[in-house]
């Protein structure tokens, strides 16, 4: 099928032009020590159990550096650029799952009839229930969460899964609204993401020997000392749609336009008898327009927490109305599938912070080395890169047609609240046991969590997060006589300090996230054939979700230019979990009172639970991907 990319010609021309501009001067000096250009082509082909092809991504990346040395008062002046373009063929090769032919008609559970088709739910004459099926047809959809769990007497509704140019239902403007070409060619978008990095470095040397070292431009700024989990490393948002949490962060951080300045003091005597081996003060000003994480759009292979599907289904409900399973008169035994009209429930819009000075983000870091101890103290004021759903928006009462703010109504806008973070990190080498310990912690205020005890269905909480890691090399002679294995373990803890939870008639209500939770990771890596063959196993276990990932892989460096990586990503343990779904929140009292609940007050949840939508916060990213086992093959040719 021939496809035409919206605006691709523009981007191709721009890329060609930018590349040409970069290459033109570099090609003349490419052999010189002060200029470098290189790159790679990579094909990543993944196959998912029960789905088939889940990735056929082809990447071309060019990296260039030009060093100018001393320029005026500045030294070590250099310009760096990284250009990246990808084409993921999965949308063409497996279009029944991820492309223009994905999805189909759906059935939704109903207490009376067993199941009804989308559009076949309860409509009560004289109310505003019901929707126009021609605007929201029963096609191109999946049932929310169907790949992971049955409806099981809980909430369920249809989610459109086709690219937004094929099916615009549920596409949230400026947030989750990619058309097919933007899915295929991820970098070619309005943010010019094909310019992955472009920055200038320059130093200013002081007579004291101290150096003011600055990097200005589109870049990644990395804080912290941990792998996989981001406690302090939160300056750049992340593209989880690329491979969930499993790609190297370098490849999935979304570079931003940032000014980063370090005042490098080196060995510094603070007062007599007390000196640091190294001391550095850093200021980071992210002056780019805010961008959230890319959590994956429903219809993509990787949709972390399946949140993108929840959002798309909810936006479709708001825009077009739709059928919700087991809703009217719901009890733990189920309820009647109900047809809601537009503007009654769902997600209305995403409020992305626009560019203005007050929306920029600022960070400070003091970092140093004191003997065997490395440390940093960090502070950052930023915007949450994860969405927060705030209820309390005006919506239509389906029974009275009155538009007002209803307590605990599942009608939301998406916000990205400002978050303030303070934290720090340490590393320490213990000679006695030849082990490096890493510690990282962050205390945030301003984060928002779903909370079915609150009328707007969210609340703020301070959060404490930390990671304790240990790295040790261990000889296992019967496996390798020449080189030790690297063992790297981490425990990541998260504590929601203003956690709320209450027992209600049918179950617990409140914040679905675990109040205290830990995730453990373990990396074991071996080295053979002069490090040209490196098998490794990465495991991660979510203790409260009881979900585990096993990711074995082998890298084979065939030549200096050619590398093959074969691997798998297997999940074991529990998947979906249930939590209060707010069907029993009684927003339109008395019409929405829940059977069996005595003196059911308006806006008060009775704790009726299901897998959707809030169970995902208990399952976590590992549990929610339980049915996404994959085998993976990556070929990279560097040049």
């Amino acid at each position, binding site marked *: 099928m021939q496809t035409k990319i919206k605006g691709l010609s523009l981007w191709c021309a721009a890329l060609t032009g930018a590349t040409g501009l970069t290459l033109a001067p570099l090609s003349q000096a490419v052999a010189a020590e002060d200029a470098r250009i290189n790159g790679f082509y990579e094909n990543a082909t993944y196959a998912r159990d029960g789905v088939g092809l889940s990735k056929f991504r082809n990447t071309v990346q060019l990296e260039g550096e030009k060093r100018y040395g001393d320029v005026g008062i500045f030294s070590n002046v250099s310009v760096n650029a990284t250009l990246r373009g990808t084409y993921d063929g999965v949308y063409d090769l497996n279009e029944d799952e991820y492309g223009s032919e994905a999805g189909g008609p759906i059935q939704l559970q109903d207490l009376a009839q067993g199941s009804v088709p989308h559009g076949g739910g309860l409509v009560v004459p004289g109310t505003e229930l019901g929707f126009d099926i021609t605007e929201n047809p029963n096609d191109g959809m999946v049932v929310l969460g169907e790949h992971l769990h049955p409806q099981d007497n809980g909430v369920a509704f249809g989610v459109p899964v086709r690219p937004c140019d094929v099916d615009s239902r549920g596409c949230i403007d400026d947030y989750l609204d990619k058309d097919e070409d933007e899915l295929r060619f991820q970098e070619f978008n309005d943010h010019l993401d094909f310019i992955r990095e472009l920055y200038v470095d320059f130093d200013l040397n002081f007579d004291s020997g101290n150096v003011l070292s600055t990097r200005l431009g589109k870049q990644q700024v990395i804080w912290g000392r941990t792998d996989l989990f981001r406690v302090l490393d939160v300056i750049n948002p992340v593209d989880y749609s690329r491979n969930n949490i499993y790609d190297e962060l*370098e490849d999935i951080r979304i570079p931003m336009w940032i000014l980063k300045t370090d005042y490098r003091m080196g060995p510094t005597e603070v007062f007599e008898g007390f000196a640091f081996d190294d001391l550095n003060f850093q200021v980071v000003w992210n002056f780019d327009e805010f961008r959230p994480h890319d959590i994956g759009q429903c219809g993509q292979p990787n949709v972390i927490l399946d949140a993108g599907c929840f959002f798309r289904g909810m936006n479709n409900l708001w825009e077009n109305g739709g059928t919700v399973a087991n809703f009217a008169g719901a009890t733990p035994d189920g309820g009647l599938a109900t047809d809601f009209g537009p503007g009654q429930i769902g997600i209305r819009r995403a409020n992305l912070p626009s560019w203005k000075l007050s929306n920029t983000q600022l960070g400070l870091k003091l970092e140093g080395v004191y003997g*065997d101890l490395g440390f940093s103290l960090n502070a950052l004021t930023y915007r949450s890169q994860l969405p927060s759903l705030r209820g309390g928006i005006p919506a239509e009462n389906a029974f009275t047609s009155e538009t007002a703010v209803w307590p605990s109504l599942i009608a939301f806008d998406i916000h990205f609240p400002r978050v303030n973070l303070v934290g720090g990190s340490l590393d320490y080498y213990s000679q006695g046991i030849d*082990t490096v310990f*890493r510690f990282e912690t962050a205390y945030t205020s301003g984060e928002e969590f779903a909370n079915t005890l609150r009328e707007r269905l969210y609340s703020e909480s301070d959060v404490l997060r930390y990671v304790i890691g240990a790295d040790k090399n261990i000889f296992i002679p019967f496996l390798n006589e020449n080189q030790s294995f690297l063992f790297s373990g981490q425990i990541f803890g998260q504590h929601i300090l203003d956690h709320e939870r209450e027992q209600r008639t049918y179950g617990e209500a409140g914040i679905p996230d675990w109040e205290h939770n830990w995730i453990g990771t373990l990396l074991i890596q071996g080295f053979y054939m002069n490090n*040209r063959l490196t098998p490794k196993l990465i495991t991660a276990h979510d203790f409260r979700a009881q979900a585990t990932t096993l990711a074995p892989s082998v890298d084979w*460096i065939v030549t200096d*230019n050619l590398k093959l990586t074969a691997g798998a990503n297997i999940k074991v343990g529990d998947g979906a979990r249930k939590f209060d779904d707010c069907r029993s929140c009684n927003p339109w009292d008395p019409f929405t009172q829940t059977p069996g609940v005595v003196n059911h007050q308006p806006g008060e949840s009775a704790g009726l639970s299901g897998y959707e939508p809030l169970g995902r916060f208990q399952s976590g990213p590992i549990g929610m991907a339980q049915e996404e086992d994959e085998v993976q093959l990556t070929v990279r040719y560097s040049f």
Partner: protein
Amino acid sequence: MKHNKMNTLTRTLIAGCTAGMMATATFAEEAVITESFYPYKTETPQFEGLQPGMVINQDNVAQFKEVIDPAFYRFIEQGWTTITVGETTSFDLHPNYVEATRVSLGNVSLGDKVGEINGWQAGRPFPQEPSADDPRAGEKLAWNYKYGYNWGDSAAIYPFYWKYRDMDSGDVERTIKFNFHFLNYKGRVNQEPTPEITPNPSDLFRAIYVQVLDPADVRDTQLLIHRAADDLKRDNSWLYLGFQRRVRRLATGQVTDAFLGSDLMIEDFEGYNGRISDMNWTYKGTRYMLMPFYNHNELTLDSETHQDDDGYQVVAFSGKGGCFPNITWQLRKVYEVESVPVDESHPLSKRVHFMDAQTFTIPRTVSYDRKGSLWKTFTIGQAHPDHHLPKNKGSGVSIDDSFSMIDVQASHCTTGQFKGQVDPELTPTNMFNVQYLRATGS
């Protein structure tokens, strides 16, 4: 008066004897310095039948068995390589290093434990000839190596090519291009500040900074090693991985790990890169041996691996698998020292080091596995600084210029081709701070 005359005579005699003794002592001290730093001043090593310009090969090697270490002898015997003999020349170390040795002569002593040393500030700590009767003679020679003038106060190998080779097929499996930078914090004798860089909060003796330039999968990897003056303390090391863009502190206990998959353990660098206290050292004897010392500019060099504006070329390799440097060898005074790991789980049973008596470099090391079988042999070619880059002339540094680490059991080798530069501008102090890794990483 008689009494006075007697007193005067006595005083005169005492003064004369004292002056004579002092003169004798000074003369003895100078003899120690001369013997240690200028062993070829009065005598050129000779061995029957050995002449500069000749080639020792499979056919005539038996004649020279006494002056070739056993591992290299075997290589020649098997026809894997040959030795081209060069004229023995003096590799004079920098006069400031010699003077520092002279100043501290007799003030340095070993501590009670292996790895402890007292009174050293700069120069060669134990310039006296080793004695077979001294049970700690080997340890003293190890200190002389550690506090040697190896790369001077600072230097860079800029760049440095490592090639991983299959010895049977001759295939080059991997080529890694580095920059290595060395900086001495203590014992400095030449570059300001001397004798120590301050502040030096962790009491460092030396620091090493490594940057990987190629190939792509390891590009931007950086390594920083801080070596404390206290030999009993382990190194502090940090690694910056380009693909993680993060500095990670390393556990440095496993110094027997292969460095970036090469045939070199981290502990092998420069001949020995561990703590003195990790080994039991034994002095085995002094003799003349053929050692890889040469004039770089007089060699037929490798015109392909490296080109630059200086017109500098690196040492070429040939022989079996391309594992042997095309260099010349000199008959030189050598101390044979054996080091046996203290740790019984160490993969080696011992190393035999052949230390060059004049420079205290370790150009030849032979390593044996736990079973006592020959495992690896390490050759570090030493180039005279006056016949190398113009900037190295007069530096008094014996330039590490080529290396070959051969794993005879795996039939595999790693070769090294250097552009060694004794140039403090390439090695600024701020390069050896952790933050430099972050600032340099892209």
